[in-house]
């Protein structure tokens, strides 16, 4: 059910997520400590290719990682397998990536300026 390909996808997505999560938390703490308002933060992220790539990569990694993780849980504890399981894995991935992409778009697209 988890072959080498899925296993590697899950490990690599974890490797990508870890530094991005730490980076996200560090920047959040720094920004809030610095007294930046939500509007000011958005002013810096919107129109920024860097933040688009940062959160875009994060969302992609999360979607892959969570879809495979849920696949294992559903298979081992609910007993769904075969094509249904594959379809479910892709569906979870699609929902997560769609929701994540929407959020990334909202935070990083558009012209800068608060």
């Amino acid at each position: 059910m988890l072959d080498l390909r899925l296993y590697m996808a899950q490990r690599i997505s974890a490797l990508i997520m870890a530094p991005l999560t730490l980076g996200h938390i560090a920047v959040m703490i720094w920004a809030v400590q610095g007294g930046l308002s939500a509007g000011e933060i958005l002013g810096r992220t919107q129109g920024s290719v860097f933040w688009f790539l940062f959160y875009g990569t994060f969302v992609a990694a999360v979607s892959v990682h969570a879809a495979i993780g849920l696949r294992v849980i559903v298979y081992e504890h609910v007993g769904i397998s075969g094509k249904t399981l594959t379809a479910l894995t892709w569906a979870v991935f699609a929902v997560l990536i769609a929701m994540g992409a929407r959020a990334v778009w909202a935070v990083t697209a558009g012209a800068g300026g608060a």
Partner: protein
Amino acid sequence: MSAQAEKLDVSVWRGDSDGAYQTFQVPAYESQTILDVVSWIQQYADPTLTYRFACRVGMCGSCAMMVNGRPRWTCRTHIKTVVKDGAVQIGPLRNLPVIKDLAADMDPFFDKWVAAGGVHAPSGSRYDPIEPVDPAGPERTEASAGIECINCSVCYAACDTVAGNADYLGPAALQRAWTLYNDAKHDARESILDAVSGTGGCHNCHSMGSCTVYCPNELDPMSAIAGLKRETAKNFFRKRG
């Protein structure tokens, strides 16, 4: 207090998977193993009780059963270490089909052993000169760590991943694969990595370590599986690199 006067309430699984537990009163003795208790029932209470054993000294791996819900080698486990309030429950090994009573069907266990690439393929014949193997070398050390496996299936019964995933090869078969992978005299070492990388392969292991905790020979299948994961991951990049 006479030891013989004491009785144990021993409930034993009867029938196939639709069976039920049946309780017997068994006299308690000093130095009594779980296998002794089961044998007493078969000899003195009900000769139709089916169970399996051979060596009685922890060599053959045929006597494993679930004892109070935990897998154990019954010939080497004293009953007094498992009795609770004078009672004990003995059932067939978990994660395997039940043939009858305490005898589980070991076929899936051994089929997976073979599927994981566990059949030895000699790299030379008797006519070749014997190549020396350094017993302290790093590869041989890895291989030697798993060779005392007696195929008892205790680890297989302990593994929750096997319980949830019928295709999973399980700890013993994967440990065997790791042993052969590190064996300089095995001729099919690369194909082992393929054999353990499929849908039921080593990557399904959750590394929770029940196998290592319960193995009566104190082997460490979990670490062997970690070794397989490491090597298959390295190979994944090598193939693409």
